[in-house]
């Protein structure tokens, strides 16, 4: 019987067709794209042979956009229109970026996410990030010779819902189908773990250009289980540069530099930091725009001293993650170093001291995240993987709801394994109250004002009752990307309201569509045509998935009538898929999705039963 041909019910049985999928590390300083080729994860280089794309975007007056090295070369010449480290502004308001306000940008305080005024107009961090992602998408499609099925985009584990949502929006804007948002330390663990076939508890210490993450994972029989994660989404190598920059200002008796000089000295600061990795002393020499000469000498010891507290700010979350995982340092088998900033000797030394062991650095700390993301993308795209492994990740910050007195009532605690759902009941506090406003927050602090506000929505139409007798059940659902949706329902009347949490400054679908169509910013693909192509690809994938499922399980799980109904819906999709009527394709796909609901249920039930029988169907086949 056909039913017994597969070992893993979820996986497609079409190994001949390799789907093009990539992993993208959208970094603060550099971004990379990687893919699995012939079973091996490789980073894709640009035409000049470099893997790292500096995350720098320059806007020009004529509307042209430069990304990468060429933009980076202009950062001191044209600092206000050359955006570096845009990741630090993703999903962040002006007050959040206050600490780095002496950056040479013209910030625009817009509701929620800060925007930047450039010569080409006001740009949101989402749009700027999308420019970087577009370049990587083009690089991948050129290199792989075809359109991508999708991409896994990595995010810092400690990114909150707003930052994740902004990242996903940027990917959509770049025309990428997001297969999954994957936490950076987890991606690194995949690259390491699968490489070394490790077992036991590992810590991943990930200090990037602008973010710090630490994750504690248990690797066991192909399962990567994140036990706890912690971090600081506004701490990274940039801050070390900033310390040197401030030191130069003090040492050279400077104050109030213009944007060009600021960027110039920041660039020199970064170079000095990198020099001090291999040298005990470095000379910083620069000529400012007024002709003044800056010529100072910085020793490694001074650099260590001025950055000591930055280092402490990474060790504290590390200890906290260990406590959350209920583990002591002795139980950690290995420590993986990720991110370019872990090249600093004082970082390596401090981590080694804390964990009482030499950290692992055998994979390139700049590339390991992209390599891991590519492995995950390959599996999610439905390409068969020789290794059968499973990833269980967590949410980094507690999700809660505002209750009386401005307090946050936690609904899903931090470090809960995702996907996760939790329902909590609330009640009215006034007689005859017919509406309830629901304020969703994220963070560990007790006061709502200390947490991040994610969304506010209202449940209306509650029947008038005595205070305290309405039963309002609020359900939080966090999906595998770590993104939240919330439903509220009054249990006596059944009145319901729900939101997919879009932070007030997240972009709505409408805004993204508008941006996608706003092709005059600079030359883009014809968006209409692209949207049609994507729909067609999606429809073709669905047809293939359903066809495979029918061949495998149709006879066993469905009666003749149900099979016929699905077949008819498939025919309907085939009838319109090569046409150019977007909405007809959408309708046909939707109705095919509807027709397969029961079939999907039956397949899922069988999967669960299979797991319980403790053996795979392939074993029966023998």
């Amino acid at each position, binding site marked *: 019987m056909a039913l017994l041909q597969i070992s893993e*019910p979820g996986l497609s049985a079409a190994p001949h067709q390799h789907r093009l999928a990539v992993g993208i590390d959208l970094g603060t300083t550099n971004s990379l794209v990687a893919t699995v080729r012939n079973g091996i994860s490789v980073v894709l280089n640009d035409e000049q042979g470099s893997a790292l794309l500096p995350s720098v975007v320059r806007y020009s007056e004529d509307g042209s956009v430069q990304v990468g090295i060429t933009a980076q070369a202009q950062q001191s010449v044209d600092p206000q229109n050359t955006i570096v480290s845009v990741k630090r502004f993703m999903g962040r308001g002006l007050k959040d970026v206050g600490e780095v306000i002496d950056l040479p940008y013209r910030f625009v305080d817009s509701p929620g996410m800060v925007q930047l005024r450039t010569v080409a107009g006001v740009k949101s961090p989402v749009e700027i990030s999308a420019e970087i992602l577009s370049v990587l998408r083009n690089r991948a499609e050129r290199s792989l010779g075809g359109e991508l099925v999708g991409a896994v985009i990595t995010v810092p584990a400690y990114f909150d819902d707003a930052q994740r949502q902004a990242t996903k929006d940027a990917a959509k804007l770049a025309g990428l189908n997001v*297969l999954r948002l994957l936490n950076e330390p987890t991606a690194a663990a995949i690259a390491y773990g699968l490489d070394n076939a490790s077992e036991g508890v590992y810590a991943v210490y990930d200090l990037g250009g602008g973010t710090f993450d630490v994750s504690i994972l248990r690797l066991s029989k192909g399962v990567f289980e994140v036990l706890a994660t912690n971090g600081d989404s506004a701490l990274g190598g940039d801050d070390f540069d900033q310390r040197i920059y401030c030191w130069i200002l003090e040492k050279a008796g400077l104050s109030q530099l213009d944007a060009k000089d600021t960027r110039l000295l920041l660039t020199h600061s970064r170079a000095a930091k990198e020099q001090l990795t291999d040298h005990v002393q470095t000379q910083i020499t620069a000529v400012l725009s007024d002709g003044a000469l800056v010529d100072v000498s910085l020793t490694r010891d001074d650099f260590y001293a001025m950055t000591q507290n930055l280092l402490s700010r990474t060790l504290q979350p590390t200890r906290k993650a260990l406590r959350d995982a209920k583990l002591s340092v002795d139980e950690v088998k290995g420590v993986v170093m990720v991110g370019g900033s872990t090249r600093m000797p004082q970082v390596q030394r401090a981590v080694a001291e804390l964990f009482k062991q030499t950290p692992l650095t055998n994979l390139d700390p700049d590339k390991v995240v992209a390599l891991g993301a590519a492995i995950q993308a390959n599996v999610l795209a439905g390409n068969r993987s020789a290794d059968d492994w499973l990833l269980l990740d967590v949410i980094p910050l507690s999700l809660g709801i505002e209750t009386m007195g401005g307090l946050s009532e936690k609904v899903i605690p931090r470090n809960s394994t995702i*996907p996760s759902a939790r329902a909590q009941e609330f009640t009215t506090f006034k007689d005859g109250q017919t509406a309830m406003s629901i304020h969703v927050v994220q963070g560990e602090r007790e006061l709502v004002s200390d947490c991040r506000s994610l969304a506010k929505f209202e449940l209306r139409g509650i029947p008038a009752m005595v205070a305290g007798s309405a039963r309002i059940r609020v359900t939080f659902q966090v999906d*595998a990307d770590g993104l939240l949706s919330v439903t509220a329902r009054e249990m006596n009347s059944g009145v319901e309201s729900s939101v997919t949490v879009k932070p007030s400054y997240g972009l709505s679908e409408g805004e993204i569509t508008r941006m996608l169509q706003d092709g005059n910013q600079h030359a883009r693909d014809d968006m209409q045509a692209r949207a049609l192509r994507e729909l067609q690809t999606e429809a073709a994938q669905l047809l293939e998935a359903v066809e495979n499922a029918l061949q495998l399980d149709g006879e066993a799980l469905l009666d003749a009538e149900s099979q016929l109904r699905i077949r008819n819906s498939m025919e309907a999709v085939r009838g319109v898929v090569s046409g150019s009527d977007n909405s007809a394709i959408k309708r046909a796909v939707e109705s095919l999705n509807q027709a*397969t*609901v029961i079939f999907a*249920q039956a397949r899922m039930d069988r999967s*669960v039963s299979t797991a319980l029988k403790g053996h795979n169907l392939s074993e029966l086949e023998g």
Partner: protein
Amino acid sequence: MKSLDFQQDFFRLFEISPRFAIDSAALDQRYRDLQSQVHPDKFSHLSESEQRLSMQWSTRINEGYQTLRSPLARGRYLLSLQGVDTQEETNTAMPLDFLMQQMEWREALQDAIAAKDMDALDVLSDNNRKETAMLQQQLGAQLDESHDHLAAAGSVRKLRFLEKLAEEISSAYDELDS
């Protein structure tokens, strides 16, 4: 083929007999086997309905695992299957000696925080752990042997006190570490 009951109880879902004493290695193994079958990562290239179902199942299995893995949640859950409400929010009648000890420990916690005394925290944490282990053993006997549901509900309420204290000790560590 008969459809599985999504709402079936967690012990059935994990095929573990509904007792307080469980084989935690077996639970871990079942959890991994189940997630390997239903996790969204296995369905991301399939139809929308399969993706949605996968998320629901995976969520349910995570919830079940959390419930069965924690002794307190497991005890509470066993009682709820018997129709016993543990009244953790409403029933505040506690044996006097237990309350006295709790007050002492909470004072000790405040003192340790004020004195920034990590060693005192360690001692307190250790005491709390021992007391928790003792109460868990007691709860197991009440649930699995004497089937005394009222006494078991009392033990659950005590364990909830200790869990709260453990949470406070944990945030005290965070505070002293900052």
